[in-house]
């Protein structure tokens, strides 16, 4: 089985993040960039499947040059190789266009199974998995907290607001995962050394048969009109609990008409 894992590089969600003032895109140059956290769970799940059933694990990233760091980091966890789609024309791409590029690269790889994160921490769009599956005409099992593979049949369990669902499909398929699915491994020293020598293929849009005008700002289906920093919340009254902290809390609730 050939498993392609989608890995996105994103600005660290624990640090200050900004949009650029010149072209309204995510400021990646001044941010500290990391692997989208949910994608580490996707990598872990792929490696576990490989350990149990054999096969090959390939990392796929669409992103700027500097995403190479995250790809090497992903490889140090254990995958076999990586594909990096990088092209100046991609700057400014919307989700619809990004899904076109990812789908083309997945098709070229001939993946039996695509595993990705349920959502990215920068966009939080949660739409790419279904967009990609729609383009490829394959099943999308999204938001998995558990995945079982038996030959060509897949079963996931996913959380719903009411409880949970069990959903099945056959390969080829795409599965997106939440952080409840496993505990990602840390790269070993050996893994880090090995990652430096693993094959990393770089593809341009041309290699995927996509024209520059279909992506980037030219091909964008939505545009940012303006953006601004939200004024930070002001700290209000802070009291020491003393002996009557609970009562004072309720007095405040009452003054705000919550009780």
């Amino acid at each position, binding site marked *: 089985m050939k498993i392609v894992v989608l890995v996105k590089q994103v600005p660290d*969600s624990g640090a*200050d*993040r*900004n949009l650029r003032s010149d072209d309204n895109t995510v400021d990646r140059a001044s941010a500290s960039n990391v692997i989208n956290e949910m994608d580490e769970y996707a990598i872990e799940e792929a490696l576990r499947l490989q350990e149990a059933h054999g096969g090959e694990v390939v990392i796929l990233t669409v992103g700027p040059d500097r995403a190479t760091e995250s790809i090497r980091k992903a490889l140090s966890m254990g995958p076999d190789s990586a594909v990096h789609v990088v092209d100046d024309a991609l700057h400014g791409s919307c*989700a*619809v266009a990004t*899904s076109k590029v990812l789908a083309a690269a997945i098709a070229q790889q001939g993946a039996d199974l695509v595993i990705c994160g349920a959502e990215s*921490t920068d966009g*939080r*769009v949660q739409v790419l998995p*279904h*967009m990609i599956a*729609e383009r490829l005409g*394959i*099943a*999308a*099992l*999204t*938001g998995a907290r558990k995945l079982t593979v038996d030959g060509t049949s897949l079963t996931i369990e996913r*959380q*719903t*607001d*009411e*409880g949970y*669902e*069990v*959903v*099945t*499909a056959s390969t080829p*398929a795409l599965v997106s995962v939440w*952080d409840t699915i496993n505990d990602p491994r840390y790269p070993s020293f050996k893994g880090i050394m090995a990652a430096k020598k693993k094959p990393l293929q770089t593809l341009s849009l041309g290699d995927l048969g996509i024209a520059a005008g279909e992506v980037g700002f030219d091909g*964008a*289906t*939505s*545009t*940012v*009109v303006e*953006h*601004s*920093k939200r004024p*930070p*919340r002001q*700290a*209000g*009254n802070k*009291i*020491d*609990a003393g002996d*009557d*902290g*609970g*009562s*004072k*809390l*309720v007095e*405040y*609730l*009452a003054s705000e008409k*919550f*009780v």
Partner: protein
Amino acid sequence: MAEVLVVVEASQGVAKKVTLEMLTLARTLGDVSAVVLGGSAAALADKLGEFGASKIYAAEGEDLDGYLVAGKATVLAALIQRVSPAAVLLASSQEGKEIAGRVAVKLDNGLLTDVVALDADGVGTQVVFAGSTIVKSKVSKGLPIVTVRPNSLTPTPAPATPSVEQVEVALTDKDKLAKVVERKVEAKGARPELAEASIVVSGGRGVGSADNFKLVEELADLLGGAVGASRAAVDSGFYPHQFQVGQTGKTVSPQLYVALGISGAIQHRAGMQTSKTIIAVNKDAEAPIFELADFGVVGDLFKVVPQAAEEIRKRK
């Protein structure tokens, strides 16, 4: 007036609050038609009418209920092509976003997700990066397909008597690839749903144990609110994952958010920053949660919360 489609989100035959919010928002944009994908439209009609739907498109049948969203997207895309609406609103839930994503690809159309406001020109407002940045954006190709974040506005009734039109459900094999073989409803109790609640009481690592979460539940119940949890509390096994608030959990925007034993990490703030009023109880006076609390109590939650609960009971 131009027609605006609102894709109904319901739970066990009852329209969710976000649906009523979308109907209210849609009325500012045009003539409102509700779209029911799966389930039964008849059970929902009264409520949809009460909030201003003048028409209901009903697409029903096992083929829609028994598979994940692909079929719903096929039906919605066909409807959009037939009626050419001025805009399409869906809930910013997992399902709403997934349907929107597929429809966008099918129609090669832009989409906006997690919108908290939408004006008549189709400009949507989004709050991103842990609540630090406000973005205004617009679909530049096709019609506005927009997912609306729950609790973004107050639903108001505007009674109408909707006509109901059955919509044909013509699916292909590609729409039936992900089959739902089991749907488990776990006991939910009387508490409001987290994303829709107007009061949320959340506990963090400071609550200390699953057993101690009873304190959080007790305060939530006294206030008629939902219970939330920080990721540290969830990871420690104190409370189930579906109640996690933050970056990788639910985004909530209630009238009142009470944080008990939560430090206020940026990823937690991401899910609760836009709450109207924030109260925090934490024994560490330097905890960052106090930077955004309207009212902060520095102290031991095991003393403060029981006392507060007692006080509320007395006042009742």
